[in-house]
């Protein structure tokens, strides 16, 4: 490359940088050639240098496959990739980069680039802002928020030849990626069965369930439960024989994603961030039920699942602890942007938490009503006495009450 600073000036992001900053950047630039089909870096590996494409074309194969089209994903000369090297939070959004043809790119070490930009007080920071803006743009069409769940005519019959108990019948609704869906219904309306089929503990006898377009449950297809959809159980499933720290680090260590030391540091930071620091060495039996519930949610989040399944987690807690846990769950939800599938008996809790409320009938469980809750986020407890909330509650309480009375008379007992 002849006039490297000149070429750099043409790059859209370094537009009005000073001459000498450009020279300094050009100084740390080294040219790299890649053959056709070569992999520059893989998902999860954080690249340490930013690549400015000079010739050829580069793309993200995994994203193409996920989104089924290549618009906006192929990089042409003059564009950038490997932004994660520069922008800190991009770490988790890194996707494999593969060269479609013979390419030449000049690599700039991210950390040194940041120093150079910091040395230039005036325009350096503007360029940093551009990088952040680029990250937001990238995030726009990169489906960062996975976890869209769609349930098509799901049906479940227990012991078809024998007692033939129809638990769930023709139930279909969609949960937007990153949305919070709550299923409400009396005991015995098949909501736990639905959750078990999504999590992969039970098989469906009719219909399909897709997670991000991937089929995860269908009749006759026994899929293994995986760390991409983690369940928080009703009466808590913390291993009583492990300390709190061992419980939380169980996921990453067992999947061999992190070494024990790494997992422990990650767990400690997450616990501090979430506010339950200080109980690392205690056993689950020694901490209060509210605290146990929080440890369990952290244990699920550390594995970075696509969807979080909650099976009436707050049922055993008394009223005030339950209200704490609601706010706590919403905080975690905003922080982690995971899709949440939540089932409960308590209508008020459902409306307060959810974007989408699914009301189920008693056995055989059918979808009685779908309510989109348009309350503003972040939601605080004062919302409970707001007019919109009461309207929503009025709208659903008749239906739910009627179902509850039917279940109450028939003496329905939890089957699943």
């Amino acid at each position, binding site marked *: 490359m002849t006039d490297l600073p000149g070429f750099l000036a043409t790059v859209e992001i370094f537009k009005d940088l000073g001459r000498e900053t450009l020279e300094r950047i050009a100084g740390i630039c080294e040219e790299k050639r890649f053959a056709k089909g070569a992999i520059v870096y893989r998902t999860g590996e954080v690249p340490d240098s930013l690549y400015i494409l000079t010739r050829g074309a580069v793309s993200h194969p995994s994203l193409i496959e996920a989104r089924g089209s290549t618009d906006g994903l192929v990089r042409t000369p003059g564009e950038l990739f490997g932004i994660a090297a520069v922008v800190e939070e991009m770490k988790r959004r890194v996707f494999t980069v593969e060269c479609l043809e013979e390419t030449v790119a000049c690599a700039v070490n991210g950390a040194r680039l940041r120093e150079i930009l910091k040395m230039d007080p005036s325009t350096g920071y503007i360029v940093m802002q551009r990088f952040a803006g680029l990250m937001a743009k990238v995030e726009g069409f990169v489906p960062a928020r996975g976890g869209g769940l769609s349930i098509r005519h799901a049906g479940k019959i227990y012991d078809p030849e024998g007692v033939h108990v129809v638990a769930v019948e023709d139930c279909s609704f969609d949960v937007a990626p990153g949305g919070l869906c709550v299923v409400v219904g*009396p005991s015995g309306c098949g909501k736990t069965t639905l959750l078990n089929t999504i999590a992969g503990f039970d098989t469906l006898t009719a219909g399909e369930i897709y997670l991000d377009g991937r089929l995860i449950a269908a009749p006759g297809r026994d899929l293994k439960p995986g760390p991409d959809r983690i369940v928080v159980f009703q009466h808590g499933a913390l291993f009583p024989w492990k300390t709190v720290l061992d419980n939380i680090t169980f996921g990453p260590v067992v999947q061999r994603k992190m070494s024990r030391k790494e997992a422990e540091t990650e767990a400690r930071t997450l616990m501090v961030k979430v506010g339950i620091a200080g109980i690392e060495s205690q056993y689950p039996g020694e901490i209060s039920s*509210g605290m146990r519930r929080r440890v369990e949610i952290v244990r699920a989040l550390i594995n970075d699942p696509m969807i979080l399944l909650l099976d009436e987690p707050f*049922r055993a807690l008394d009223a005030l602890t339950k209200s704490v846990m609601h706010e706590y769950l919403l905080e975690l939800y905003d922080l982690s942007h995971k899709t949440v599938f939540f089932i409960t008996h308590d209508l008020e809790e459902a409306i307060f938490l959810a974007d989408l409320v699914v009301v189920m009938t008693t056995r055989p469980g059918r979808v009685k009503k779908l309510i989109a809750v348009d309350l503003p986020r972040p939601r605080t*407890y004062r919302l409970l006495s707001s007019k919109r909330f009461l309207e929503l509650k009025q709208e659903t309480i008749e239906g739910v009450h009627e179902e509850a009375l039917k279940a109450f008379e028939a003496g329905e007992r939890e089957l699943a």
Partner: protein
Amino acid sequence: MPPDRHTGRVECRAVTKMFGEEWARQVVVDDASFVVEQGQLNVMIGPSGCGKSTLINLIAGYEAPTSGEIRLDGERIEGPGRDRLVVFQETALFPWMTSLENVMFGPEVRGTNRREARQEARRLLEKVGLKGFEDKYPSQLSGGMQRRCELARALINQPKIMLMDEPFRGLDAMTRELMQEYLLRLFEESRHTVLFVTSELEEAIFLADRLLILTAKPTSVKEVLTVDLPRPRDFHVLTSPRYGELKQEALEALYEEAVKAFAKGSKAAYDLVEAFGKRVGGG
């Protein structure tokens, strides 16, 4: 046939109760003096683990108070007796008897002949909505139905006062609401004196005529709130503004007690204090 109007008044004067040897003495109830009005639904609420159940046991006569006395309609309470019905936290139905036999236990023990007792038991089971479940064992009934069978078993003795120690704790939210409404119907119809213990604030205010707020351990009655919501109540009252005010008031009193209980290191109170701190502070 409801008991005659003027009975069922419990009066506790300076009742204290201590457990354990003198080197690990634990005072659970410390000079609690209050009156359970007759014909009213009195609800006791306090931070969990503050000795509410011990107070109920004292009134029911299972344990004698270390000092002070408890009078029911004037005479002192010696041991448990037919005139005080007790419903426990976990179902105390006899698993080896069918629901009909469970309900017939009271009259049988009193010595009335079996045929009459059987008829009365069937009538009561029908009244509580358990028709057709007479010869089922308690393990075959759902939570709500077990609770109703227990109520029927106690009502057959026409007690003067009903003592209920967090009876709806194990039930799920919906069955609990239905059982609360059911209890209100029962109370409004027969006007027994009821002493109801709970740790849920919404449930307490929804049911109560008089709300007794207890202090942390050692327990004594801190404050008595009269709940003047209209009778007969249904779940719409939950969204009325008066309900909100009452709830706020009770919450304030309860918060101090929770902090004291928490200072004494009770695990359960930890969640309550944090919950409330977040609410009042963060809100």
